[in-house]
């Protein structure tokens, strides 16, 4: 019983819920959780009334910064993020698309300098005519989010 509680409940940290199942590991990657030393619980393919099948991430003892959670808006715009303190939700973090994203993706243009030289990638996020596109700061090419490759 005690063991189950340790996995299920989070005393302090961040819970990311309602991640579409096929996006869970992209969220893990975009937040660089693979190198994190915090205790992390991942769950996937859980039943969800809203989206059918969902994933979940719990990160102990770390409240994600806004610029980190905003990256999630790129991948899973309907995910729910709660900051937990002493088992209580102290903040429901709204997801806001960032104006600029750094480092997390490779430019989709094979002829872009960032794919040939050690350059930190930067993209401007363009929201217009109802769609979201990324514009590489360097080659100035606009692309859909699916066209960039996450690092």
């Amino acid at each position, binding site marked *: 019983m005690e063991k189950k509680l340790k996995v299920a409940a989070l005393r302090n940290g961040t819970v990311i819920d309602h991640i579409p199942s096929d996006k869970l590991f992209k969220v893990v990657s975009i937040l660089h959780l693979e190198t994190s030393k915090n205790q992390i619980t991942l769950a996937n393919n859980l039943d969800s009334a809203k989206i059918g099948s969902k994933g979940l991430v719990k990160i102990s003892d770390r409240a994600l910064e806004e610029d980190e959670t905003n990256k999630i808006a790129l991948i899973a715009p309907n995910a729910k993020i709660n900051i937990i303190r002493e088992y209580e939700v102290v903040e429901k973090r709204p997801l806001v698309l960032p104006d600029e994203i750094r480092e997390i993706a490779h430019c989709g243009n094979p*002829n872009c*300098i960032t794919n040939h030289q*050690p350059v930190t990638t930067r993209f401007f996020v363009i929201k*217009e*005519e109802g769609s979201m*596109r990324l514009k590489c700061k*360097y080659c*100035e*090419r606009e692309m859909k989010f699916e066209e960039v490759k996450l690092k």
Partner: protein
Amino acid sequence: MSKNSLVSISDYSKEEILAILDSATGFEANPNRKTLDGKVVATLFFEPSTRTRLSFETAVIRLGGSIIGFSDAATSSSSKGETLNDTIHMVSCYADVIVMRHPLEGAARYAAEVSPVPIVNAGDGANQHPSQTLLDLYSIKKTQGTLENLNICLVGDLKYGRTVHSLIMAMSHFNPTFKFIAPEELKMPEEYKIFCRKHGIKYSEATELNNNFNDADILYMTRVQRERFQDLMEYERVKNVYTLKNKMLINSKLNLKILHPLPRVNEIDPDVDSNEKAYYFQQAQNGLYVRQAIISKVMGIKS
């Protein structure tokens, strides 16, 4: 990082564009000056472009400056694996400004970020070539007397042609009306049509050239560039789709001028050359004055 670099035409405001064109008018009247006396300009051409390099180097020489550099990456240390960052830092120890041509898109923006001296982008892959755009604007203004409210017809490779994309962005300050004439395979990409709609710029599209530019003030022809095609069969299908001939100009406006960034292949028949509406060779010459104006501006020299 130098704040004076010119990487993309969108780096310049309307006022800055007009100031460059004014300055170029002064250089056309009096191209030989000594304002760059004692200054060194590096021309780093990581891919060959003889026309652009000679134009920039002539601009520097006519201003009394000196030139160092290379005209082919094979003769530079980048062929030994040196990073662009290191090349730029090394050259900036010697030169006051760097004019750079590079085959990779975004190379100029990156160079401008790391360089302590101004970078002038002389073309980065299929991306930007702002001195070409400014000389196009100069040619339009010189021949039409204004940049405002003109009918501009863009013809040929509107998909990959960076000159037409930059021209749309630069002309957006001046209330133009565009007609895009291209084969289906080389149509204007959606992002530039979105740009036009966002800026309230009127445009229409057509696939036929003949009799489709009778209301145009500027007919801007482009070459279909073989090197931009993944599929060479597609290139063969479209390469000769438009050839402007002298007889097609009969119903065109008196003030019409034909521009082309050159080199041309088959887009303009040589029988057009003697028509006074042909302006592409003067357009190339205008590049010299515009580049004198650009180099003076990035170096903070009053002209």
